[in-house]
């Protein structure tokens, strides 16, 4: 089959992007995978080390636990918010949506520091609690799993809200009317019709947040403690402190595999194309 100029044209446009990705992404990625099994000679010891050392397995477990907590928290906070936005007039909703998304353009670092100020021993939250007499001593929220989950939930919330909102916007309000006309109260119509129809959004938002969570670094590194280390922190420590790039590569490969698994689940349940679409 001869490709016409028309067919070749669009591919030519891709060349710079493909070249860039090959040099700066594919090549280092392969390098990393190779290092995990060939540093210095062909070996599986970097992987067996991970399995044999309970502390490292704990890090993996912690990573999943935190990701799950963050995903659930983002869902619990994001669902009502997205529902509220989806019921507003488009103009109002768009305006409020901007308010949800704008923080997302600020550096993660800045937002993490803001939470550290809020949640610290001398932070606003503790001052309010002390002022109200609800606690007698400042709560030690910072540098705990709680503070990590709070910080990460806040940072990843926009992804959840956007995913939910775009699906909720697409739900025909007539369907709720129909359910009501068929004898459902408003609450039952919501549970029987709206909630099931919003499930693609829940799956999309949940997987998106989970995928972003498991590789999160800045927030857990700054707001957490070492006992609740996530895998990315462990990787960084291997590279920066212990110069163990083989082990770091093995850890990174595992993180990559977990992320890909989640992506696969996402594709199965939602369809990857949904990631880039605004509406159903």
């Amino acid at each position: 089959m001869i490709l016409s100029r028309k067919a070749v044209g669009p591919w030519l446009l891709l060349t710079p992007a493909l070249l860039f990705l090959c040099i700066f992404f594919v090549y280092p990625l392969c390098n990393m995978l190779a290092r995990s099994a060939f540093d210095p000679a062909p070996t599986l010891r970097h992987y067996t080390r991970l399995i044999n050392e309970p502390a490292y397995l704990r890090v993996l477990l912690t990573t999943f636990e935190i990701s799950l907590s963050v995903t659930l928290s983002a869902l619990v906070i994001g669902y009502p918010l997205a529902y509220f936005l989806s019921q507003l007039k488009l103009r109002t909703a768009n305006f409020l949506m901007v308010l949800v998304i704008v923080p997302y353009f600020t550096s993660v670092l800045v937002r993490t520091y803001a939470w550290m100020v809020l949640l610290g021993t001398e932070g606003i939250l503790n001052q309010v609690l002390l002022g109200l007499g609800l606690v007698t001593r400042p709560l030690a929220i910072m540098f705990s799993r709680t503070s990590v989950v709070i910080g990460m939930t806040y940072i990843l919330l926009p992804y959840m809200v956007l995913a939910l909102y775009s699906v909720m916007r697409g739900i025909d309000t007539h369907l709720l009317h129909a359910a009501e006309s068929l004898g459902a109260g408003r609450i039952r119509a919501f549970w029987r019709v709206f909630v099931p129809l919003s499930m693609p959004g829940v799956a999309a938002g949940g997987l998106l947040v989970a995928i972003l969570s498991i590789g999160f670094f800045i927030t857990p590194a700054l707001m957490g403690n070492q006992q609740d280390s996530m895998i990315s922190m462990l990787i960084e420590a291997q590279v920066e402190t212990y110069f163990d790039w083989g082990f770091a590569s093995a850890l990174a490969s595992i993180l990559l595999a977990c992320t890909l698994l989640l992506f696969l689940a996402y594709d199965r349940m939602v369809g990857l194309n949904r990631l880039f679409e605004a509406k159903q």
Partner: protein
Amino acid sequence: MIQSTKPFVSRGGTELRLEGVTKLYAGTAAVDRLDLTVAQGEFVTLLGASGSGKTTTLMMLAGFTQADSGRISIGGRDVTALPPGKRNLGVVFQNYSLFPHLTVAQNLAFPLEMRKLGRAEIKDAVLRALEIVHLPDKAERYPRELSGGQQQRVALARAIIFHPQALLMDEPLGALDKNLREHMQIEIKRLHASLGATIVFVTHDQEEALTMSNRVAVMDNGKIAQIASPRAIYEEPLNRFVASFIGQSNFLPGKVLGGRGDGFVVQLTTGDKLNCRGPHQPAPGDEVLAVVRPEHIAVYREAQIDGHRKTISGKVVDTLYLGHTIKLEVCLADGTRLMTQSTSAALDGVVPPPGSAVQLDLGSRSIWCIPAVEEAK
């Protein structure tokens, strides 16, 4: 198409009544002090252009929209403050509104589950409903796997499966193509006949309204301009709005000379005298408009004048050849212009050229007249 011998809806339906119902949107009345009574088992169509208030009226009946004032009752029970789920009305929406995440059977079961019916009972009812709408093999399909017409039938089945007191239909056939629409019109009519259900039907399609209804309510500006049988709406429009909304009409101004029998005699501004009738018996000297449908005017060339008939002379201004029909714009002696519509056969296939003189025969029946000046409502 629906040929069930067993009556599906046990109750025959209920009377619906709106009294002085008003709905304001941003200070403007979408529905303005509307009174409407739909008798038990009656098929009433709300007909109007978009923005006339017909859908708002239906939504208030269904309970999705709250009336700002007035009273709505179903079977004598005041439901003005009742939520939609408690009104026991079957609603069919323009886009069917089938639940996309449920199968056809689950869609049909939904209202029965809401009413806490037993499993077996639900299963039985669903099967029976599917048979009635001729979709017994589609129970496990999802709505998106059905054609538009099939979806429409499922929506219909879902709206009647729980024995509602009445059926409300909001432009239910709007999304179907012409053939399917005509087919469904007949099905709905049969359903109405076999169920004896009270139906309120909203449409902007006058033909649909005339074909299907016992009575048509023509709506304009949040009010009912006229409610009457399809024949009366067409033949005896109460006012200029209805006369021009339903089909086409020529309005010939004239003055009442005096009564004669059931009707009265009107002298047109052209000088011609006509035997007329109207909604009211006018007093001599009253100004009236004779409502003449283009298709009721027989057109003769000068040479063909039948001496027994009273005709009006005019001159062809413009012609429109449509194959089976020919439309003429004719200028009368006093400058009044009117449209005629004749079959090609009636004119022997000859189109009178512009400028040619014609004689117009308005027929032997008395002509319908409406007051030239309408009383403010």
